[in-house]
Structures are given as C-alpha cells and as structure tokens.
C-alpha cells in the first residue's frame, strides 16, 4: 500500500502527537492500542495548559472574570458536542466521566423510573462490560429482565435472534454497541433504531468506538441515548458524554445530588435544575471538558470523511497483511467493519504475543477486552487486538506483521 493514496497527510498529523516520537525499549513506538485510549494531540494539551495557566476558576456560580471565562469555555464545549452529534439542542448533552458513567446514569435514573419490573432490556453478545453490567445491576435491583441478542459467526447482529428477543413485546430498551471493541463490526444503527421504535422500545447506542471513526448524527439515527468517552476521541481522561433526547432528559430524575444540579434546596424538599445541569452535580471536569472541546475541533478540522476513508484503507491493508501470517486467525468478518482487529495465533497465547511485540516497540492489547461473554461465544479465552487511530500508518501494520512473524518463529 502506498502512502500517497492515504486520504490525509498522516505524517503531518503525527507531528501533532508528541508521544508518537518516543522510543519504547529502544525501538520506534508503534501504538496500536488506540481503541483502549487514544493519544492526545498538542492542541488538546495546549488547551488544557491554557485554561490552567491563564483562565481558570470554578464555573457557573462566579461573578468574576476568570470564572466567566472558564464558564464560557466549558459551556462552549456543550455546543461543540451538540454539533458533533448533530443533537437537536445543547441541552441534550450531559457531561459525565466516561461512557461507563453515561450508561450507568441512564440505568440508575431512566431505568429505575421509566422501566417497570418485568420490562426487558436487550443487549447483544458483543457488548463491552460497560453496556452489560449496569443492566445486570438494574435487573437485580429493579426486577427488569435482561435478554441477549445473538451474533452470527461473522460478528454481525443476528436479525432472527433480534426478532425473537422482541417477539413478546416486552423489550423497552435496546442497548447496543455502535461498533464492537473486539470484532470491529459496526451495527446498522438507523435500521435498529427504526426496529426498536416500531416495537415500542427506546434505543441506547454505545458509541465509544464508533465516534472515533465516523460522523455520527443522532437525529438521522434517531437515537434516544448515545454515549461516548473523551479519551478515545483524542481528548483527556475524566470526561464523557451522554446524549439523550430532550423529552427523555426532562422526565428523568437526577442521579447524583449536590451543587449545581438543584433549583432550590430546603431541608424538606429540594427541586431540580433543568437538564443538562440536573445531571451534573458538583464541580465538573472543567479542564478536561475544555480539552475535549479542543479534541473535537481537531478531528473536525481533519474531517470525518477523511478519517473514515483512512480507517477503511488501514483496515483493508491490515486484513490482507495479517492474514498472511501463518497460524494467525482474525476474529469476525463483518461486512461493515473498521479499525479494530482481534486475532489469535496457533501455539502463542495472546499475552505472550503482546509481551513479545512490546519488546519490539509495538503496543497491542491482549485479554478479554472487557467482553468476557463474547470470548465465550468466540470460543477463546483471550485475544490480541490491534486498533487504529488517525495517526496510524500502513507501515505500522507492516511492522506488526513482521513482529508477529517473529513471535511465530519463537513459538514454532
């Protein structure tokens, strides 16, 4: 694959990511673990430095200059996120710590009020624990039922199973990943939302992986809830997003109690602020939110068309290249798949693969990827996983392939 065909100047982009020029064990650093958390461009680092060195104070309640500046910068990111997702309004954007908290927030508030005991929450076999455990906890605390939609051997949602799960009309929430963090499969979200709505259910989409690679339009999808984490989108840790339709948020009781989420407080009774503030108790992650804003600016400047095309090319290159490594098996073969590739190798355990690659400067993840039940479905106990970001070069995939050849020889 020749570099000249890439849809964007990846070499220029890499200049924005200081960490990529580090050496690891004396070797050039090949980072293929963006799916766990992406690296940060200097624009994000600089935005965080700027607020801390030049315009910091607590937000919302301040009548002084620094507080006004910080509040503006913070609230301004809500607009950026609303634009990123094409939300109907900025009030539909709630800031959380990460995708995990976003899903738990929905389970604790909407789940315990809009759902009744006996109602069903349906998830798929390829969910991250973040989109499974909260619904188990809701089941155990609130008496809802949890159903599992099967996937096919290719790693796509099994439509027959989906229809079966919905057959008795009890499903009130379809909670699904928009892109599998193990198999790289995208789910057909527009079609799924239509299906869910036609069956009287809401749909929650876990966009943790998808948001990084594709333009997401929550209105075109008609998603009721959409969640993601800042740290996978080249932003800082400590900041996540929950999108929910305005009428749903309006009806939701608060999650955490404290400052900023109230309208009034007396000992007998407190009243709640309007969304989104109702769901943002206490001092928010001000610096991190501003960092996320810079990350959004960054990816939007590159453009999701270019990003998606880049991902597509890398994925194709990776599938072709890795399939040539003897004894290597890639898991999943969905039609619509992206920059997340899990594999196993004959005779070499995923942990050994990861350790041996690391010694060559190549970072991949190994384990169950927070998707234990999916491992069972795939008949493996763990996999090695390479994931791509907008700074990933085809040459890095080639380096991975030669690294794996070396692993193979050691274990041969």
């Amino acid at each position, binding site marked *: 694959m020749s570099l000249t065909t890439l849809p964007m100047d990846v070499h220029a982009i890499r200049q924005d990511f200081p960490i990529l020029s580090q050496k690891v064990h004396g070797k050039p650093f090949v980072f293929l673990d963006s799916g766990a958390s992406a690296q940060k461009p200097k624009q994000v680092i600089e935005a965080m430095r700027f607020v801390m060195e030049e315009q910091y104070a607590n937000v919302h309640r301040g009548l002084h200059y620094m507080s006004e500046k910080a509040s503006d910068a913070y609230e301004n990111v809500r607009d950026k996120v609303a634009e990123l997702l094409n939300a109907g309004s900025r009030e539909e954007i709630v800031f959380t710590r990460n995708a995990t908290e976003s899903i738990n927030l929905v389970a604790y508030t909407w789940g315990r009020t809009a759902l009744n005991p006996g109602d069903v929450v349906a998830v798929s076999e390829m969910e991250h624990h973040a989109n499974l455990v909260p619904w188990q906890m809701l089941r155990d605390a609130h008496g809802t039922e949890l159903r599992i939609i099967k996937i096919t051997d290719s790693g796509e949602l099994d439509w027959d199973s989906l229809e079966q799960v919905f057959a008795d009309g009890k499903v009130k929430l379809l909670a699904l990943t928009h892109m599998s963090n193990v198999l790289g499969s995208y789910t057909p979200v527009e079609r799924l939302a239509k299906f869910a709505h036609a069956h009287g259910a809401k749909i929650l989409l876990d966009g943790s992986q998808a948001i990084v690679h594709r333009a997401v339009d929550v209105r075109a999808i008609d998603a009721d809830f959409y969640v993601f984490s800042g740290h996978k989108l080249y932003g800082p840790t400590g900041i996540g997003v929950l999108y929910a339709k305005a009428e749903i948020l309006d009806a939701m009781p608060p999650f955490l109690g404290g400052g900023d989420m109230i309208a009034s407080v007396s000992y007998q009774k407190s009243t709640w602020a309007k969304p989104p503030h109702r769901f943002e108790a206490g001092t928010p992650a001000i610096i991190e939110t501003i960092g996320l804003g810079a990350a959004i600016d960054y990816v939007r400047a590159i453009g999701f068309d270019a990003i998606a095309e880049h991902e597509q090319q890398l994925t194709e290159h990776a599938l072709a290249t890795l399939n040539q490594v003897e004894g290597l098996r890639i898991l999943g073969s969905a039609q619509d798949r992206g920059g997340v590739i899990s594999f196993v190798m004959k005779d070499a355990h*995923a942990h*050994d693969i990861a350790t041996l690659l690391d*010694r060559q400067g190549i970072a991949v993840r190994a384990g*169950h990827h927070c998707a234990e039940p999916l491992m069972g479905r795939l008949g493996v106990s763990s996999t090695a996983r390479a994931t791509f970001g907008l700074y990933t070069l085809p040459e890095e995939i080639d380096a991975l392939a030669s690294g794996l050849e070396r692993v193979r020889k050691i274990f041969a």
Partner: protein
Amino acid sequence: MSEALYQSIVLESSRNPQHAGRPAVFNAEGRSENRMCGDIISIFRGADGWRHEAQGCAILAASAELMCIAATGKTAAEISMLSWMFEKLVNTGEVNPELGDLNALASIAQYPSRLRCATLPWSALGNAIAGDAENG
C-alpha cells in the same frame, strides 16, 4: 536481550511439559485463576508427585511445569521456602542458585505486568497444601 523471558527452557517447559495433566488418583488439589486475563491453573499431588493443568500463556505453563519439577519430593516446609525464594526471584530478577531451573523465570522482573502469570501456579500449590493440611 530483549526477549530474555522466552529463552529455550521456558519455551520447552511450556511446550513439552512432563508434569502436565490431572492424575487419575491424587491426594491434594489446588486451584487459582486470574479472571482479568482468563488464566486458570490446577495443581494435583498424585502418586508420582506434583502435576498441573494450566490454561493460559507460555509463562504460566512454564512456571507450572518448572514448579512441579522443583516441588516434587519436597516437604510442605521446603515448598514454602521455595515459594518464598521464587517470589523474591521474580520480583528482583536476582538469580538464586538454590532455585535451579526456576531461575529461567528471573527476567519476569522486567515484565511487571506478567508477574502474575509466573506466580499463579504457586498460589494454586499453596492452596493445595493448605487444603491438604485442613483435611488432616
């Protein structure tokens, strides 16, 4: 050397273990697992000494094999001494002549996230011995 951990003795022990497989009859058994990565190991004391059943990476398998060799014929007190020395070996990387082939795992000290793979068999062995003591 950068791949020091995967020297031939480790690979050989993991690939061609002589002490693998559950014995038909055994009088002590211990188990340990690390659910974070799917590693599971069981240890048995059969007629011909300690044996293991390991499901996991090469380090786990090699450590189990080398441990079974080292532990066979030893008393509980001697094994606990060995375990203590092994713990020290993998944490410091300092070779200890008394550990013999177990020293092949010394370089795990440079791979802190893999430490657990090497020590898991020893936890299972500890459980087996403790269970044995409990049963009388």
